């Protein structure tokens, strides 16, 4: 009983502590050295959706994320894999116009969906206004988070227009405004380690039709 209440003991400490040698699995740490189950081939599943207006049919391992379906099967590598865990936003795409982290979504869940990726927003010769604003305001550096930032930025302005509330609004029952703080709050799921945030805010403000108004903390 006393052992069970010992605050210094952790689950992992119980598993591996106390002995000079310890047995743990490579990845991830397992509870006990059980023999692994033999893996069976995964049945494939068909899925059909549109990507950037084009109908696509794929037969996929059901573990395939929407992100990997786009990148590895459709070779649309503009959508980036930064973390594969929904932590960075680099994989942001639009599904029926709403942004999602495509790494947190299995491809087979998207039967019949209309998906828009960065490649569908614009081309080098014909940039989407948000893409052009990112170039003009230098809203990127290494460029790896950039497609996700741009997809998010396009969706954020639409969310504000549709009145989707956020917690930084003074009045959540009122209409959100495309203010600097409002946009920064909504963009915070898209990490940019190069630190282009100040410039991205200016790019978005230009597209939103306002100045990057400063709201004080």
């Amino acid at each position: 009983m006393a052992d069970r209440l010992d605050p210094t003991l952790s689950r992992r400490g119980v598993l591996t502590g106390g002995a000079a040698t310890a047995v743990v699995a490579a990845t991830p740490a397992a509870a006990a050295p059980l023999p692994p189950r033999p893996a069976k081939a995964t049945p494939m599943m068909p899925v059909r959706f549109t990507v950037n207006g084009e109908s696509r049919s794929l037969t996929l391992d059901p573990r395939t994320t929407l992100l990997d379906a786009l990148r590895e099967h459709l070779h649309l590598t503009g959508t980036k894999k930064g973390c594969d865990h929904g932590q960075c936003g680099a994989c942001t795409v639009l599904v029926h116009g709403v942004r999602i982290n495509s790494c947190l979504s299995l491809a087979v869940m998207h039967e019949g969906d209309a998906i828009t990726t960065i490649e569908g927003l614009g081309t080098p010769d014909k940039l989407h206004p948000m893409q052009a604003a990112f170039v003009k305001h230098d809203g990127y550096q290494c460029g790896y988070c950039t497609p996700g930032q741009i997809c998010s930025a396009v969706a954020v302005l639409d969310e504000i227009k549709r009145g989707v509330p956020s917690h930084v609004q003074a009045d959540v029952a009122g209409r959100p405004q495309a203010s600097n703080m409002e946009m920064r709050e909504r963009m915070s799921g898209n990490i940019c380690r190069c630190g282009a945030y100040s410039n991205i805010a200016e790019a978005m403000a230009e597209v939103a039709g306002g100045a990057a108004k400063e709201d004080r903390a």
Partner: protein
Amino acid sequence: MKFDTPAGANPIDRMAVVGRAHDRIDGPLKTTGRAPYAYEHHREAPNAAYGQVVGAAVAKGMVRSMDLDAARAAPGVLAIVTAADLGKLGFGQFGKGKFNTVKLLGGPAVDHYHQALAIVVAETFEQARAAANLVRIDYTRSQGRFDLDEALKTAPLTGGSSDEGSAAPGMDRVGDFEAAFAAAPVTLDARYTTPDHSHAMMEPFASIASWTGDALTLWTSNQMIAWGHGDLAKTLGMPKDKISFQSAYVGGGFGGKLFLRTDAVMAALGAKAAGRPVKVALPRPLIANNTTHRPATRQRIRIGATKDGTITAIAHESGSGDQPNGSPETAVNQTKLLYAGANRLTAMRLAVLDLPEGNAMRAPGEAPGMMALEVAMDEMAEKLGMDPVAFRVKNDTQVDPEKPTRRFSQRQLVRCLTEGADRFGWTRRNPKPAAVRDGRWLVGMGVASAFRNHINMASGARVRLDGRGVVTVETDMTDIGTGSYTIIAQTAAEMMGVPVDAVVVRLGNSAYPVSAGSGGQFGAANATAGVYAACVKLRDQVAQRLGYNSADVAFAGGKVTSGNRSADLAQAAAAGELVAQDKIEFGDLEKQWQLSTFGAHFVEVGVDAYTGATRLRRMLAVCAAGRIINPKSARSQVIGAMTMGVGSALMEELAVDPRFGLFVNHDLATYEVPVHADIPHQDVVFLDEADDKANPMKAKGVGELGLCGVGAAVANAIYNATGVRIRDYPITLDKHLEKLPAVA
């Protein structure tokens, strides 16, 4: 081209293209998702299989046995490679790269947590990932050294260099520090700690390897092509000329991708074993422990001054840890040069730890060193009753304080501080801490100097001129978000008298001349100087081809003019492409002169009087760093560095688990970096400069200058807001909440 005397007037001085804000020429590709990064070469490496790296689950010990049967039998598995397989794969000479402290493939000995022990290659990513989870490894775990404070008690004095322009001996003395400190009427003796930091670049370490016979092509994400190329050859024990090493786009590096890493090695091994191209990206949760990090520091700073604020004694000591045969974090480097003072001491201790390899991260040395020094300067100013800007101005020096005969080539620190103070409204700062309220916010302002050395690096380039007048530059320089593509195009455009869109820039390929590479804020100035040198040769060839006297030829508007003769540039290549190659090399100007960059950071924060949470309200950097080649991309370098500085001040910390010897917060959810909501509008000012002692571009660098001092400026602003001095980074709210002024 040997640069051994100060630059005279040259074609760059015209500044028709150089020195002007220019949109990035790679912008349309990057913003539309068309720029191909390391893992994105379906066309060049079709039919690539997928490799998943298995990392060690203990920090120190031995692999007792590996059970690969279940993994081998898993669907889609093509090959598994461990250290035991190297000989039979033909890599009997497998070793360690020159720039790596620790082997990139472990086993049977394990050197650190998540060190690569195996790669599992399968037809699909999902299969490789699932099979990697079936690898069973039994370890004999041994006692590791993970406690920096404990290990520093017996750590020896150790000199070192970051390989990036920051270096110091184990101990350095000028005058008699102890006596001067003892005699000083006003003194400070304070200790500061900075934690381990992770680069956390957005693009994971990733490589695709493809073998054709005994030749290897590698698409990877690397800042330094020549270093990576050489170290891959050395690691695999094969000739360099059998490897093509390519990195055209790099999704951030910050020093983490200066070196060859395990993704490249394991992709090469996996591809050899599978007989197919193999692509490998390190899973995000593996990166913090598998790759390098900025080591934590324990610093002590002592400053003694006369009552009028003249520093008479200054000492900076730092301790850090690394793997055996590693290097110290050179956190004392800037203190050798930044402020005057007749009696000086710097010292570094290096402890041996079994945490993952410590190595360079953006502004290695100065970033954590300035986080301590510039807080100490703030504390000292308060003790003296002086304004922190005035105290710094008073202790400016125009010569190397350790060698007073050696002058700074340019040093506008004072102007950065005073002009910044004017622009920021510094006079509105209340010197009494915790005296300004704005509703629920305790408001404060902070300042810090910025300082980083410029270093010279040899850098080569090849320049081609074709019959359409298109100028193509080839160099192994990389663009890691720094704007290399654009500034190289601007340089060639200026030299050849053509618009930027008549220049094609090809980077990041071991087939091109070796450049400075991207690191230590040495890339922009040196790489463009290398392009300058190649263009000088091309200009001579053009003049010769046109029959002009090359001494008086002018290149402008797509035309070449000599006296009253003039021709289209393209005409020079009408009979065939002209190709010129050269490199910039340096004499000893940097020994005669101290080449450094300077700046001042100003920050205003609000600290929530109720919760202790800190919010940035305003940020300004004023920088003096030689000629700014592209003010637009240079400004972005600085605001990005300022953002990273906010992270180091407020949130970034790799948390060490001292029992198991790993960084526990090894992903992007738990290693917190600044997000949009954390960063206000940022202002950057570049002072007009051109440093003729640096290179023909008269340019230096800004990418690390922008980081140096920011953390301290934030810390000083928090102190000004709260009256609570926290010397233990990051300044999270738990560290000062209980000491905040009573809420009325």
